[in-house]
């Protein structure tokens, strides 16, 4: 086709490259769409791989727990500490619990959890499935009659979709605890007063928005990691690219989703 076009109507090479890139982009979009549709098609159909889902929950959730706890605690302490001078200028340090809770519950908890998970879990899924792809283990599974998509992709995406909201909940709690320790140390605020003030400015819309955000982030991290790994090529180099692509794309999408969900949640306030 291209050779025919070249001979009949010569097109400048720059436009040709653009067309090729556009075509590749739309093709990639279609593949992603087809991948996601396949996931939704297969996830509800038996057989259900419960054991594998539990194993993946353990790998993605429980194994990330320590990292998430530490990160959440540090985020809570640092955010509280850094916010204090600005509030002190207004003589409003009593607003620290409210400020910290708004920041953590509305944005930081799901976002920090998603970014940590994208780095740890997303890259792990990408690399794992990528290596399985390049070593033709996936092909072997297909040949042997095992449904690799259901076993490898659906279980991992379900696991991330379940565990990341749970991890985000932990992060919120631990970050609030970190904020409380800092506030308690400096202002002498009691735990009851801190929690009362922390939940004061929050609404159920914030709560549900954060939960939905965490679920969407979990799904995104899982599906992106699986897509990158499942479709990796070019041998061992492809494994690295799959891991890297899983992290970068997942993080990028997480931020875009953050903006969209915040916008949508605003309509319900």
């Amino acid at each position, binding site marked *: 086709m291209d050779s025919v076009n070249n001979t009949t109507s010569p097109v400048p090479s720059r436009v040709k490259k653009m067309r090729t890139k556009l075509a590749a982009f739309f093709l990639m979009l279609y593949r992603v769409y087809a991948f996601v549709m396949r996931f939704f098609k297969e996830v509800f159909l038996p057989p259900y791989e419960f*054991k594998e889902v*539990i*194993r993946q*929950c*353990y790998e993605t*959730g*429980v194994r990330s*727990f320590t990292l998430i706890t530490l990160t959440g605690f540090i985020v809570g302490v640092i955010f509280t500490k850094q916010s204090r001078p600005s509030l002190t200028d*207004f003589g*409003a340090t009593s607003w620290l619990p409210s400020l910290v809770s708004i920041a953590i519950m509305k944005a930081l908890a799901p976002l920090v959890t998603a970014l940590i998970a994208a780095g740890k879990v997303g890259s792990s899924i990408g690399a794992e499935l990528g290596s399985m792809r390049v070593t033709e283990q996936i092909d072997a599974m297909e040949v042997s009659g095992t449904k690799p998509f259901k076993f490898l992709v659906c279980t991992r995406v379900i696991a991330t979709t*379940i*565990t990341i*909201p*749970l*991890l985000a*909940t*932990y992060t*919120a*709690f631990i970050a609030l605890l970190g904020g409380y320790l800092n506030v308690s140390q400096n202002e002498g605020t009691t735990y009851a007063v801190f*929690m*009362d003030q922390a*939940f*004061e*400015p*929050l*609404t*159920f819309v914030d*709560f549900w928005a954060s*939960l939905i955000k965490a679920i969407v982030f979990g799904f995104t991290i899982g599906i992106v990691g699986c897509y990158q790994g499942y479709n990796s090529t070019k041998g061992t180099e492809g494994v690295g690219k799959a891991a890297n692509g899983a992290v970068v794309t997942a993080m990028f999408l997480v931020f875009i989703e953050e903006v969209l969900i915040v916008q949508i949640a605003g309509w319900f*306030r």
Partner: protein
Amino acid sequence: MDTAENKRSIIVGVFVLLGVAVFVIGVLTLGGQQKSFVKSIHISSVFNDVSGLKKGNNVWFSGVKVGTIKNIHFTGPSQVDVIMSIDASTQQYIHRNAGVRISSDGFIGNKIIVIDGGSPQAPIVRDGDVLQSEKLLSTDDIMKTLQQNNQNLLAITTDFKSLSHQILAGKGTVGALLADSTMGNQLKQTMRNLQAATQNAANMSSQLNNFSNKMNTKGGFADNVLTDTITFNRIRASVSRLKEAADNATLLTDNLNKASNKLNSTDNIMGVLLNDPKGAAKVQSTLDYLQQSSVKLNDDLEAVQHNFLLKGFFKKKEKAKQDSIKKAM
């Protein structure tokens, strides 16, 4: 299912359970804050201006959070109907004549609805009641007052400026005081005089103090007057007599007054003599006649002495007189 797999499943189960538990606790805490899981009633109030009040803002009664804003919508031409969800447990304290106003949680805090007032005589508020709204003192109103204060301040400072110019120019009493050295000296002199007067007053006060001390001296007159009952009785008797004398003097004065009044009138001899010129002329002429009569009588008596009938009598009388003088010598 091997042991490791079992262990993994249990850990995942605990992980999920904990996560769900934390989430549920969060939901319940938030629900408690928002009064979502408590029985509530809905009351409303209509405002002309809600100043940015939002759904979910708090409702306070006597400084305690009793509910949240459930809904806000326009009503009438341009008014806003604010529907509040109130905790049913606080219903008994809110009365129908309570006022509702929009306030702020701190100086720059969220807008809140404050329910206050209400008398126990009024019935308790019920679901669907509409409470009377009170006018909000908005930031604009505060700014208007501040602007007025600024204008007043400007006027005052302008007056002060004019005043200071006049003072610097030596006008007015204060200006003259500052500019005129003579007046300054006079003022100094006045101050000295005042100081001297103060000194005198102090001395007088000291003397008064000494005097009062003396009055308190045991056995002194004042002390006796104040403490000795005998002396006091004597003084009282003296004063009583003095009073009688004064009464008599008053009586005497009254009599004298009456007499003098009579002397001033012409209805009595003395008054006529003193006040009536005609009467006086008559008396004068009478006296003149009397004098003339006495002269004539004298002449007549002289003539009688030389009368032969009485001549012997007068010679005997002269001789007896000469004899008594000789005997006395």
